[in-house]
C-alpha cells in the first residue's frame, strides 16, 4: 500500500473502538442499554436518560442521504487532487447520522433522500473508513 497522505482518525478511546469494528467490516454505534437510544458520535453516557450502560450495537448499515456538499476546491492540501468530491451526511435507519461519502455516484446524481448502504474502504492497514454505496431501487 502506498503512503496514504489524507488525515486519519486517531485510534484512541471510543474512536479506537469505532474504527476497530469498521476494520472488521461492522458499522456499530453506541446504544443505550437503558432507553435503547442510539447515539453517534460516541459519548460517555446517554444524554437522553442519563444511563452509563451502553453497548456497541450493530447498525443495519442502511440509511439515506440527509444532506451533502460538493467540494469543488479542496481547502486541505491532501484533498487537492480529489475535486470535485462530495461529502455526505447519511441518516441511518436507526436515527443517528454519520458523516461519510457515497462512492460510485457522481456529485450531479447525488440527491437528498437517496437510499444508501454502508461499505468499507481500507485506506491503511489499520483504518477502514465507513463509506456508502447507492442501493438500487
Amino acid at each position: 500500500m502506498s503512503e496514504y497522505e489524507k488525515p486519519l482518525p486517531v485510534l484512541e478511546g471510543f474512536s479506537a473502538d469505532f474504527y476497530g469494528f469498521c476494520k472488521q467490516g461492522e458499522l456499530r454505534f453506541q446504544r443505550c442499554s437503558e432507553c435503547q437510544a442510539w447515539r453517534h458520535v460516541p459519548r460517555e453516557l446517554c444524554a437522553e436518560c442519563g444511563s452509563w450502560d451502553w453497548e456497541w450495537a450493530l447498525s443495519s448499515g442502511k440509511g439515506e442521504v440527509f444532506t451533502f456538499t460538493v467540494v469543488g476546491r479542496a481547502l486541505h492540501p491532501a484533498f487537492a487532487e480529489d475535486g470535485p468530491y462530495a461529502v455526505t451526511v447519511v441518516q441511518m435507519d436507526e436515527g443517528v447520522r454519520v458523516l461519510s461519502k457515497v462512492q460510485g455516484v457522481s456529485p450531479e446524481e447525488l440527491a437528498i433522500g437517496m437510499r444508501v448502504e454502508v461499505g468499507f474502504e481500507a485506506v491503511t492497514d489499520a483504518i477502514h473508513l465507513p463509506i456508502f454505496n447507492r442501493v438500487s431501487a
Partner: protein
Amino acid sequence: MKEACIVGIGETDYCRKPGSGLSQLGVQLQASARAIGEAGLKASEIDGIMPFPNLGRAEEIAANLGCENLRYAATIHMGGAAPAASLQSAAAAVNSGMANYVLLPAGWNGYSGARVRQTVSQDVSSIPGGAIARDYYLPFGFTAPPQWYSVMARRHMHEFGTRSEQLGAIALTMRKHAQLNPKAVMHGKPMTMDDYLASPMLADPYRFFDCCLETDGGAAVVVTSAERARDLPTRPVRILAAACGQPYPADEITNRRDIFKTGLTIAAPEAFGKAGLTPSDADFAMIYDCFTFEVLQQLEEAGFCQRGEGGSFVEGGRIELGGELPVNTHGGLLSEAHVLGMSHIVEAVRQLRGGLGERQVKDAQVGVVTGWGDFGDGSIALLAR
C-alpha cells in the same frame, strides 16, 4: 438596571497583500491602543481584558500595552461569536465592580499568516469539536468551515426552496456597502449577480463569493459603566442587552435533531426580552457573515423573519442601506475584512454615534450585532445611542 457602554473603538488598516507588517499580537495591540486612546483613557486604567479565543493572552496584551492594574481576564470560547458574547460578560464585569474598563481585542493575519481556511485542520484543539472533526470529519475531506456550514445551507434549500440568487443577494449587498467604505478591502471592486453566479463552486451551494475574505487586521472596543462613560470624551453607545448560546450538540454538526437551531436561536429571545424590544425595533443589523447562508440563517433565528422566509427577506433591497433593515453597512466579513466579528461592533458604534455620511443609516437609534462561531455558537448584542 445598570447599563454598560462602549466608549472607545479602534481598528488597524485592513489588507491582503503584502500583509499587515505586524505580528498577530501586533495588529491586536495597534487596534487596542487606538480604542483606549479614543476613549480618553490610559492603558493603566484598563483593568479588564477579554482576549479572542486562541489568538492572544491577556498577560501578553497587558504587558505590551502597559495595563499594570489588570484584574479581570476572561475569554468566551465561541469563535466568531466571542466578540458580541464578550460584550455581555464585559457589561456584567463593569456593573458588578469586577473591572472598571474592559478591553475587547481581536485580530489576526488571516491572509499573510496561517490562512483562515486551514486553522482547524492545522490545530484541532482550536475549536471545541476539534477532536470529533479530527476523527469523524477530516478523514472524509470535511475539513473547513465553508464545507461544514454548506450542508446546513443545502438542507435549507431542500426544505424551504432557498435559491442561489438569494444567497447572491447577500453577497451583492455586502459588496455594494463596501463601495461606501474606503477601509474595505473590496472598496472600488463592485460585483454583479453574473459575477457572483460565475464564481467557482467551493463547497456547493457555496460559491467563491459566498465566502468571507481572508485578511490581515485587528479591531478593539472598550466597555465601561454608564456612570464612568459620562466622564469620557466619546459619545457612549449603550449595551441594552447581550446574550449568547450554543446549538445542541455544539461540538458536532450532523446529529442535531433540528439542524437549523443554533446558538442564536436561544440567545436572541433572551436579548430582545431583556431589552424590552423586538426585532422590528432595530434600525440596522450587523450580522456575522462568514458565509452568505449564515446571514440568512441568523436573520431567521434572530426573529427578523420566520424560519424558511430568509430567502425572500434578503431580496429586493430590504437589507441594503435605505431598505427596511440595512445589514453590514461596512461590507462585513464578505467585503470589508475578516476581523472575527469585532468590526461588526465597531461599525454598529459608528452608526449609533452618527455622521457616517452616505453610509449613515438615517436616524439610527437601535442596532443589533450578532456573532457566529465554531459549529454554530451564537451571540447577539442590542446597542443604542
